[in-house]
């Protein structure tokens, strides 16, 4: 891979519009270099999922996404056999008189063919590798699934009894995200490089807005970020706005044609910024004070 330093990683990610600080760039660099999975945690809306997308885009690799949920198991993550098609295939053989007593074995073998294999995300990523495998919200899956994931992530290979072993020629870049609804198992964490993503600082967030929402005017951009940063510093909000909310809010204000924030436009678009009634009330009061000052 052509990336020989954390700075190069940051620059490449920057080209895709994903701006990261040196800590995140370093940990990404290490993940690429050491071929270890990257475990990202942090407040919602700080760009955990977006990082995987940016890595895929900047390295020009396909992105394979595995969304975890309760009860997910190996057949949904790895592979499954297309049972109806196998039956159809048998019926077709029967109808054309293809199955005689001698070639039963042959017919059986033809059932476990690549074309009847439904590759699920993990297998897809191994087959397509080099690729980026995003395992999103891994904390939603059950403990058992974690153990299974650990197995795949330590060997980067999958055995299919009927077909043989699928091994990735080069290990895929693996990004796991978690919202900490429960503590992940230590064994899985040990396999991974860990990073906690913080909210970006003022300048960086302005930069992010500039690259992600270029249609928003410069003055409005800075004002929006200043307000959001001050809201994040308050500790009475149930859900402080993330970067995604900042983007939404700036776009909403831009659509209303406001050159700068005024109370009327802000109140009308508050739904893009905060998602709780109590928060909306507090933010409205805070905005009133800020704008008067």
């Amino acid at each position, binding site marked *: 891979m052509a990336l020989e330093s*954390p700075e190069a990683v940051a620059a490449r990610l920057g080209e895709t519009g994903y701006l990261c600080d040196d800590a995140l760039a*370093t940990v990404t660099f290490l993940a690429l270099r*050491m071929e*270890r999975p990257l475990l990202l*945690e942090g407040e919602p809306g700080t760009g955990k999922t977006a990082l995987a997308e940016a890595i895929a885009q900047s390295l020009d690799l396909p992105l394979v996404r595995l969304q975890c949920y*309760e009860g997910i198991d190996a057949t949904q993550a790895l592979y499954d056999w297309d*049972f109806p098609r196998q039956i159809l295939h048998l019926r077709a053989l029967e109808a054309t008189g293809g199955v005689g007593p001698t070639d039963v074995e042959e017919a059986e073998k033809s059932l476990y063919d690549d074309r009847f294999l439904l590759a699920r995300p993990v297998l897809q990523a191994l087959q397509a590798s080099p690729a980026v495998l995003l395992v999103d919200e891994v904390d939603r899956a059950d403990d058992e699934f974690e153990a299974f994931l650990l197995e795949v992530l330590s060997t980067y290979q999958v055995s299919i009894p009927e077909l043989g072993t699928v091994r990735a020629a080069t290990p895929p870049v693996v990004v796991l995200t978690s919202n*900490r609804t*429960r*503590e992940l198992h230590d064994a899985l964490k040990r396999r991974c490089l860990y990073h906690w993503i913080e909210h970006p600082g003022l300048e960086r967030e302005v930069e992010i807005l500039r690259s992600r929402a270029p249609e928003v005017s410069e003055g409005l951009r800075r004002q929006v970020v200043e307000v959001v940063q001050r809201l994040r510093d308050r500790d009475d909000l149930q859900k402080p706005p993330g970067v995604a909310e900042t983007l939404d809010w700036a776009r909403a204000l831009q659509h209303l044609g406001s050159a700068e924030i005024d109370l009327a436009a802000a109140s009308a678009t508050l739904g893009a910024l905060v998602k709780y009634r109590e928060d909306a009330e507090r933010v409205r009061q805070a905005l009133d004070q800020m704008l008067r000052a």
Partner: protein
Amino acid sequence: MTPHDDGPTTRRQPDEVLLGFTLALRAAGVPVTQDRAQGFLAAAAELGAGDRRSTYLAGRATLCAGPDDLERYDQVFHAYFDARDGLPRPRPSQPPTTTPSLSQLPLDEGSGTGDEPGEDVLRAAASEVEVLRHRDVAALTAAEKHRVAGMFATLHPRPPRRRTARHQRWHRGQVDASRTLRASLRRMGEPADIAWRRRGTRPRRVVLLVDVSGSMSGYADALLRLAHRFTQAGGGTVETFTLGTRVTHVTRAMRLRDPERALVAAGETVPDWSGGTRLGETLRFFLDRWGQRGMARGAVVVVFSDGWERGDPTLLGEQMARLRRIAHRVVWVNPHRGKAGYEPVQQGVVAALPHCDDFVAGHSLATFAELVEVVSRA
């Protein structure tokens, strides 16, 4: 020049310095395992070891496992690499660890001579057990405490259950169309028996919030023992936090099988025994950092506190309301509830009560047994 002794003594190898750092980190309570340390060395080598910032980042990525570790990591890193005045750093002092003798079982009198008087002794011991079951755990002598600690083993919490999104096969209920069809396909399309299914159940998450402030200090030991019983019976679905001046996640300690070791481990983790409480603020921190993300969602949340609130009771009320909206059931356990003449008049309790589903006593083993029932049924 001299080949035999210029390595470790005169000039320390970079690897040695880095490994020393992992030891310091482990001493400070971050669980650094051997493979993590190896990962750290590899990462530091990738980045070039000369630079302070890249060493910092390499360690952060490889040695830490959660936001709680990050804070400690920063402190140790600073102490280890910046302050080189040759003085040992103060380490968090460990609470005195008493190892109880296993021979001293709760009913040690019963195993006496085994002759005729034995029956009397047994009866006396049994009634004493019954008395102890109803005694306030904060008012016990050390010997009684020791016996009550053994009696915690008689509590058998069953985790509450919830329905899951996924179905399981069953002999009645809804028709399981896909399994029925698959069965018939297996018979080449012959209609066959109808398969049935129902929604499965799983253990519901239980979150225990234990107030360890000064006013609760008499109960902290017993409550953590109770939490240990819940954790051991819960099969990984029980989470425990202590609330004081800050919120501490002690589930990892509670997972240790032996109760004494679990308590010692919890004692080492919790930095704020018998401090003040600002229940409202700590509860808000819990909800922000853990609860709202999903830890408290659909869970049975049990708050052990006497409701003495130094901060603003309205904040506590707000946060309890928020907790109630997220959780499946909120149980408030107050050690003073079961005592004669108790009225829920403390500001904190008054603010919190409207948002609780259950308000139960928790000062003796008997009331703990009742609590276990309340939680199992939730």
